[in-house]
């Protein structure tokens, strides 16, 4: 307002600072792509250059896929994250509906337990859950990766808060139409809760796709490895020798989520910041 000069100066300063910060944020990504595109000889050169003299991305990718069964690991990631999400919804939605809309003895206690459950960090329960899975002989299986996460106290809380905003009249109308309480959950509440379920879905899939701690503990077999575990093993076996393929493998592992994020940023940011509430 005061004068146009200072306004444009401020705008230039804003862009300069933000671009400088953005360069730092993007540096690892650029370095990853750069290294993944370089042949071995250029990787091991003290001279700094980002654009490879010889473009070797395809060779490095081919080598990465040859050295590790990356496709299988990606598939594992998909199977595990999708199973976790579907089971979380199947468990959380009915409970959330009952907590939000039905009156029964012990409801408040149960809800208090849910709130308490949100506070428990996953590392805290790792040892007993591991021992439990050991006892029932489920270690080193998809079940070991999925079962502990089928219960999401946070998911129940989130859905319950959402259902609270659905008018009681809608539920009563469904009852008048002869839909059972179970039917109401899936045929009335789920469609109404799609935005919340989507946000929770993104939160859940991102969290478990990127999870390293739990798969590291319960897995042994190579063919069950999830993507993060796969990169870690790749790095342990190859580090110091083949950085090109290692960076190519890292690219492959982060690609699915990053690409999905770039296509639906708003939804992803919404979903991920849900953890803020947690």
């Amino acid at each position, binding site marked *: 307002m005061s004068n146009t000069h200072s306004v444009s100066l401020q705008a230039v300063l*804003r862009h300069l*600072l*933000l671009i400088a*910060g*953005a360069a730092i*944020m993007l*540096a*690892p990504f650029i*370095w990853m792509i750069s*290294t993944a595109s370089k042949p071995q000889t250029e990787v*091991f*050169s*003290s001279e*700094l250059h980002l654009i490879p003299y010889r473009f070797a991305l395809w060779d490095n990718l081919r080598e990465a896929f040859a050295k590790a069964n990356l496709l299988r690991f990606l598939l594992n990631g998909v199977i595990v994250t999708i199973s976790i999400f579907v089971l979380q919804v199947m*468990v959380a939605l*009915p*409970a959330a509906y*009952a907590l939000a809309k*039905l*009156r*029964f003895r012990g*409801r408040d206690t*149960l809800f208090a337990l849910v709130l*308490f459950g949100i506070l428990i*960090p996953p*590392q*805290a*329960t*790792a*040892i*007993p859950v591991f*021992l439990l899975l*050991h006892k029932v002989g489920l270690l080193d299986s998809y079940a070991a990766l999925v*079962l502990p996460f*089928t*219960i999401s106290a946070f998911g129940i809380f989130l859905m319950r808060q959402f259902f609270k905003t659905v008018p009681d*009249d809608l539920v*009563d*109308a469904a009852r008048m*139409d002869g839909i*059972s*309480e179970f039917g109401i959950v899936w045929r009335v509440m789920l469609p109404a809760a799609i935005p919340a379920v989507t946000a929770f879905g993104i939160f859940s899939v*991102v969290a478990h796709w*990127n999870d*390293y701690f739990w798969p*590291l503990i319960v897995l042994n077999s190579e063919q069950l490895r999830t993507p*993060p*575990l796969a*990169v870690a093993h790749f*790095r342990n076996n190859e580090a110091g020798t083949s*950085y090109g393929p*290692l*960076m190519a493998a*890292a690219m492959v592992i982060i690609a699915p*989520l*990053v690409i999905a*994020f770039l296509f639906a940023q708003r939804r992803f*940011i919404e979903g991920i*910041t849900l953890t*803020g509430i947690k």
Partner: protein
Amino acid sequence: MSDGAMTIDAAAVPARAARRTLPAHGSRRTYSAYALVAPAAALMLVMLLGPLAGVIALSFTDYQLGAPHFSWIGLANYQDLFADKVFWIALRNTLTYVVVVVPGAVIAGLAIALLIQSGTSLRSLYRTIYFLPVMATLIAMAVVWEFMLHPQFGLVNGLLRGAGLPAFAWLQDRSTALYALCAIGIWQAVGFNMVLFLAGLVSIPKQLYEAAEIDGASSGWARFRLVTWPMLGPVTTFVVVVSGIRSFQVFDTVHVLTKGGPSKSTEVLIHTMYTEGFEFFRSGYAAAITVVFLVFVLALTLIKSRLADRGVHYT
């Protein structure tokens, strides 16, 4: 659509009346309620609350995975723990990590959010770029960072040498390794904090800034002091605590990049717990470490709920 709406209106009144006069329906609904919450309640017991009680109980035993017997040994695990130098190193490193990463990621997140919000152009591009590290699998990016920090061929030392500055063996040097991990931690957390601050900034009523203008707060700093900072208060405490809890859980980068080394200089609580519990299978001892970790995390959570109650301004 309109048919549906009519049904809803028509049904509302009689349904409410039915609830009052016919308790039989109500009790059937109560059974349904128990059936609906049963799976969640059972799983919560088995996977969350049971294990939580279990870890506390385990910390008073000498249980080791695969051992045929175990016995209650009272506070012996804790005595061992507090007598163990590695535990104190891990605790100190964890606290150092928290004390570096939390202010770093919070201040940077706030600064970026303010910068982005101070103009209108390219907002969503910047937001996307700064948020990208939150989305990328940390383990994969940790591996990239490792190579960026490579003493000979890494980008960081390459740039330092180019500027005529001394290079470091970042992750291999015990005086820099922990701080290198802190840098990665900040890099990864900044975007998350930025998004929370952006949400907070957007929700500040525009009229407050106009009132401040009219009241004489003519400099940007005066308006920040009068409106932005106090209005962000609740978001800030929230971001600080969430960053704190996440920093306490640091494990991935440590495990894949340094394994707690060199010479324990990056040993952190959860990593110690992992080593004791899942490499040496000393479950009881690892449980004691978990309990210490839990105490810190729950304390932070308590602070959060305390401050959250106080921080609410408008109704």
